[in-house]
């Protein structure tokens, strides 16, 4: 396959493909908001979750105190007991990049050797030109000769472009590194990008993608949700897109309440009647 073919595949905004992408991505994390054992108990930092440290273990967002007498919460969030782990699902927070995450990134700077992208994290991410194109099979020669030299330039993207990228490496010390080679990855030429609180992303997706399927069907639009709190969307017309944005804002606001999926269905249908959409 030549470079050109690959690029076309990347930029093809096919609805089915994207739905699949979202559903297969982060199944483990999606359950947390909708889990039956998740209580709607709001906890705050320092609140004692349990003093029974023999049966329960500290999970995510919690801390076992130094004297091992109690488990306390570290975040404002919802208390959840899973098997013998106690977790706190945060309601506010920031995005920490992890390898494998798909993110919506904005190109903020470029020079001949790399791009710099804003991914809503502490550090700007780095995208090197070798990670923007698939290495051509033919260019290496029949016997695996030296790689092509003229790949190294940053002419593919411009400052201000919005990309869907995958994180290759990320740790506490170094800037995260991205790639745009892969399925669904690459530049977005149209649509709207909105930002929400990153901890509320699982709620927008819903259990096994139920919420996002619902939103797509009701507003007849394409959505791509990424872990860094950004959502790319494109609808039939601006009225549908506005409705979808309002709906996502409502989900963000009410993320910690029960029965959200059903309520959103009602909300969208009511709003459709009000706004005269079909």
């Amino acid at each position, binding site marked *: 396959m030549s470079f050109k073919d690959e690029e076309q595949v990347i930029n093809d905004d096919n609805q089915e493909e994207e739905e699949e992408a979202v559903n297969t991505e982060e199944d483990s994390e999606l359950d947390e908001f909708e889990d039956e054992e998740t209580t709607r108990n709001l906890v705050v*930092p320092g609140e004692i979750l349990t003093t029974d440290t023999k049966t329960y273990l500290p999970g995510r967002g919690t801390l076992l*105190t130094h004297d091992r007498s109690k488990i306390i919460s570290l975040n*404002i969030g919802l208390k959840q007991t899973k098997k013998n782990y106690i977790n706190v699902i945060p309601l506010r927070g920031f995005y920490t990049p992890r390898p494998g995450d798909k993110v919506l990134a904005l190109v903020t700077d470029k020079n001949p050797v790399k791009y710099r992208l804003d991914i809503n994290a502490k550090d700007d991410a780095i995208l090197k030109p070798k990670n923007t194109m698939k290495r051509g099979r033919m260019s290496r020669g029949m016997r695996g000769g030296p790689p092509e030299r003229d790949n190294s330039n940053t002419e593919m993207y411009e400052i201000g472009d919005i990309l869907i990228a995958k994180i290759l490496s990320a740790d506490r010390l170094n800037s995260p590194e991205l790639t745009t080679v892969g399925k669904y990855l690459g530049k977005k030429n149209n649509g709207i990008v909105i930002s929400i609180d990153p901890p509320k992303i699982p709620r927008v997706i819903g259990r096994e993608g139920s919420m996002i399927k619902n939103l797509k069907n009701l507003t007849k639009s394409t959505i791509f949700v990424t872990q860094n709190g950004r959502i790319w969307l494109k609808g039939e017309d601006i009225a549908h897109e506005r409705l979808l944005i309002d709906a996502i804002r409502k989900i963000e606001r*009410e993320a*910690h309440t029960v029965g959200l999926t059903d309520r959103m269905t009602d909300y969208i249908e009511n709003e459709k009647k009000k706004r005269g959409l079909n």
Partner: protein
Amino acid sequence: MPLIIKDEYPEKLFRDDGKRLDGRDKTELRPIKMEVGVVENADGSAYLEWGNNKILAAVYGPREVHPHHLAKPDRGILRVFYRMTTYSVFERKRPAPGRREKEISMVISDCLKPLLFLELYPGSSFEVFIEVLDADGGTRCAATTIAALALADAGIPMKSLVTAVAVGKIDDELVVDLSGIEDKAGQADLPCAITWFNEELSLLQFDGEMDLKQMEKFLSLAKTALSEIYEIQLEALKKKYIDIQEEVSGGNN
């Protein structure tokens, strides 16, 4: 013609009926009101009205450190900017940060540091901006209290909240939560803060005169006052979410 106001303090800080000048008992706090999420573009924010004090706090982070040489390779840093507006006190305050503001910024920063996991965020900074809109005694305590609330609202992992209050001595009596006039005319002033995960003092300053026996009594007085304020803090932090929960469940029934 400029208005000239002399620094005049009343001779007695207690009224004839045994109450303080603003009508409070010795261990009574001024009315406190707190709210979180007031600054939309901040990561976390809170607003406090404590008697006549009005304080706004906003938290940003983790983010890159500017200027870059302040960044630490092994841990994050917490920067606190305590500032008073020019109109917050009786005589116009010059807007440049002075000695007092730098000291209070440092004191609050040291007070909040044990709560945070700064070692998890090397090379980054958390920034707390505290703006005193109206000051009437005990702003460092009020600022510490509200800064902790803003940090919690930002979703920054922290071990617990921190609460601060000032206790002092006026006319040879021990009182809680000194107001501006009591602070200036009183004999002693002791601001203290507690971190709730280990119930240890995180801030203790002292100005004035008293003996060691009174110190014990001071701290026990402070403890009761601190738990009272802590309740208000917790309620304020949860209110933002509970309001939405109630609104939603009310709509369904």
